């Protein structure tokens, strides 16, 4: 009986600890923006996607860190994250990181949660060179305040097997959403893939012609789920690991799937008969922003990196490395690694046809009305993949 008492005591202590834990992280409300960049603190800590901050250790040709470290006196420490949610968790969970390269499906969460701070654009030298279409984008600008500096963007393209489609590239996402006979005479059932992330519900909504696929009311949402449920019968495997998808295109006879330019580039580099299009319906996509933590321990180095991050050299190199489109259009010209057509290959001309990832919120991204929030998307998409 005594052991039971001990367990109870332990639980009470834990309850107390769990309930008390929330009180410690109070937000800083003194919102005076810095007016100048001071002495460097010697380092800057960045949470980034894999491949976003290269110091030449993966490939010596791709290095946009070493020179910065020498010039600024700030050593760059990178913590890579695999998903937007991991990034959000890393940033909200500690005060040790200065910057994060957040996609639109995490940036607004960070802003709403008070995790990232407003940026003083007067201290960002190259701001005028940033693509004007990105300068006030809603995924980093809230109520006229800028919470970050755009880094790069890209579209979720429709990748397809050229041996299956021959001379007639697909023009609609219907090849992955609706059962049909493909140009090689066989059904698409079992030969298409879909993205293994709840944000893919937006792809279904986009295909159905919803204007704002990240703000779905119940009716639109249910229709999208119905479409995805019948897509389940067509999909062999849902992908979330780029390299598994590359393998599936090579060894599994996949005919078409939503994909990233990254995989398409690698597959084409390996001689696989794969090409990609942005279909008539448009596409979903990601636009990433470098954002600064509210309690950033190294604000001066952080500002120095923000300045560095939109210089044309790093922008072009990043686009070449990752298969993305630079946030600074002038970086498209004269970059050796990217080549003269690099930006077009990576989809520069697609901007207006891309619906960039945002986190669905109950208030319809602030537009009013009632929408289905993101956590519902997660549960329901899991159920769809499970065949429900």
């Amino acid at each position, binding site marked *: 009986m005594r052991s039971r008492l001990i367990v109870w005591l332990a639980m009470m202590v*834990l309850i107390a600890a769990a309930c008390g834990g929330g009180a410690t992280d109070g937000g800083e409300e003194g919102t005076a923006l810095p007016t100048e960049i001071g002495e460097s603190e010697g380092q800057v800590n960045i949470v980034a996607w894999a491949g976003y901050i290269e110091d030449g250790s993966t490939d010596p040709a791709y290095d946009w860190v070493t020179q910065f470290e020498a010039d600024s006196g700030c050593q760059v420490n990178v913590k890579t994250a695999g*998903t937007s949610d991991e990034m959000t968790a890393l940033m909200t969970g500690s005060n040790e990181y200065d910057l994060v390269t957040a996609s639109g499906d995490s940036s607004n969460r960070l802003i709403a949660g008070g995790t990232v701070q407003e940026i003083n654009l007067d201290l960002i030298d190259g701001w005028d060179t940033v693509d004007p279409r990105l300068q006030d984008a809603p995924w980093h600008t809230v109520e006229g305040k800028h919470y970050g500096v755009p880094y790069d963007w890209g579209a979720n393209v429709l990748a397809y097997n050229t041996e299956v489609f021959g001379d007639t590239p697909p023009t609609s996402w219907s090849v992955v959403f609706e059962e049909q006979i493909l140009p090689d005479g066989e059904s698409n059932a079992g030969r298409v893939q879909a993205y293994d992330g709840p944000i893919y519900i937006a792809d279904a909504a986009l295909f159905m012609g919803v204007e704002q696929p990240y703000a779905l009311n119940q009716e639109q949402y249910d229709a999208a789920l119905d479409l995805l449920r019948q897509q389940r019968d067509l999909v062999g495997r849902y992908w979330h690991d780029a390299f598994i998808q590359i393998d599936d295109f090579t060894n*599994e*006879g996949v005919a078409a799937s939503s994909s990233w330019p990254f995989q398409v580039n690698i597959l084409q580099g390996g001689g696989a008969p794969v090409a990609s299009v942005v279909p008539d319906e448009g596409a979903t996509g990601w636009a990433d922003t470098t954002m600064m933590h509210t309690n950033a321990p190294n604000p001066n180095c952080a500002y120095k990196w923000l300045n560095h991050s939109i210089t044309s050299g790093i922008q072009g190199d990043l686009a070449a490395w990752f298969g993305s489109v630079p946030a600074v259009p002038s970086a498209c010209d004269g970059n050796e690694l990217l080549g003269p057509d690099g930006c077009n290959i990576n989809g520069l001309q697609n901007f207006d046809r891309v619906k960039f990832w945002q986190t669905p919120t109950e208030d319809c991204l602030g537009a009013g009305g009632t929408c289905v929030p993101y*956590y519902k998307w997660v*549960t329901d998409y899991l159920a769809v993949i*499970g065949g429900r």
Partner: protein
Amino acid sequence: MTAATQSSRPIRRIAAALYRRRRLRLALLLALPVVWLVGVYGGSLASLLIQSFFSLDNFAGTIDRTPTLDTWRELFTPANRAVMGRTIGMASAVTVAAVVVALPLAYYIARYASTRVKGWMVLAVLLPLWSSYLVRVYAWKLILAAEGIVNWVLTRLGLGGVLEGILDLPVIGGPSLSVSYLGQFVVFLYIWLPFMILPIVTALERVPRSYLEASADLGAKPGTTFRKIVWPLSIPGVAAGSIFTFSLTLGDYIIPTVIGDSSPFIGLAIYSQQGVAGNLPAAAAFSFVPIAVMAIYLTLARRLGAFETI
């Protein structure tokens, strides 16, 4: 000499003190394991349990720390029940198949193999464990792929139709072996099989040869001897092995993402609730499903007398 006794004197004094205080001795011996089990292990379980009574704030996506039963209510939606059914079904199938495959092999290792051959065979069983689990799972993905070696060999042998027939079957079939429950089952079985073989070998080694001889002397056919002597005596090993294969399959979340048609398993569901949705309460509540299943399983195993000889 005197110096030596002098220097060992404090140790002796401690030893003597410990000898006299039995309870203190016991406490010191158990302190570390108890801190580990109650503090670290029990503590994390308790914090999981507490988390599961919180809920997710729909608007900000943050965790609302007011106690509620909502999370538990949402756990038993049809979709989640399907996840549980799928996982438990797979774990049971893998366990049964592992017993069927492991028993003859273990019987040979324990009864017939010479000491040298036995060493080699145990090594062969353990060898796969020397390489990374991930490497083996990804290798299986290639082996089972539509353009993989299994398909190639069967097609060359003119048996492509047989494979297609199997893949056309409902439930276990799919577009290719690596995208079907059947392939997933094969990989699970391969990965966890060593954990079934070794305990059974140990159990069978303890069956005295004289029992088998006595059984034969009394006129029992080999089948009867197996049913009445070998099988009952191997049950402790089977039980121990099945706990491994069952619980490991129950908790695995890598294989279902690499092999199979992406249908979520319990581990995967927990992972996406926690890692993707940031819905810690739901993930915590889900974590109690495998715990509950294992508790039931262990109780049943004990009822069947599986632990009496361990």
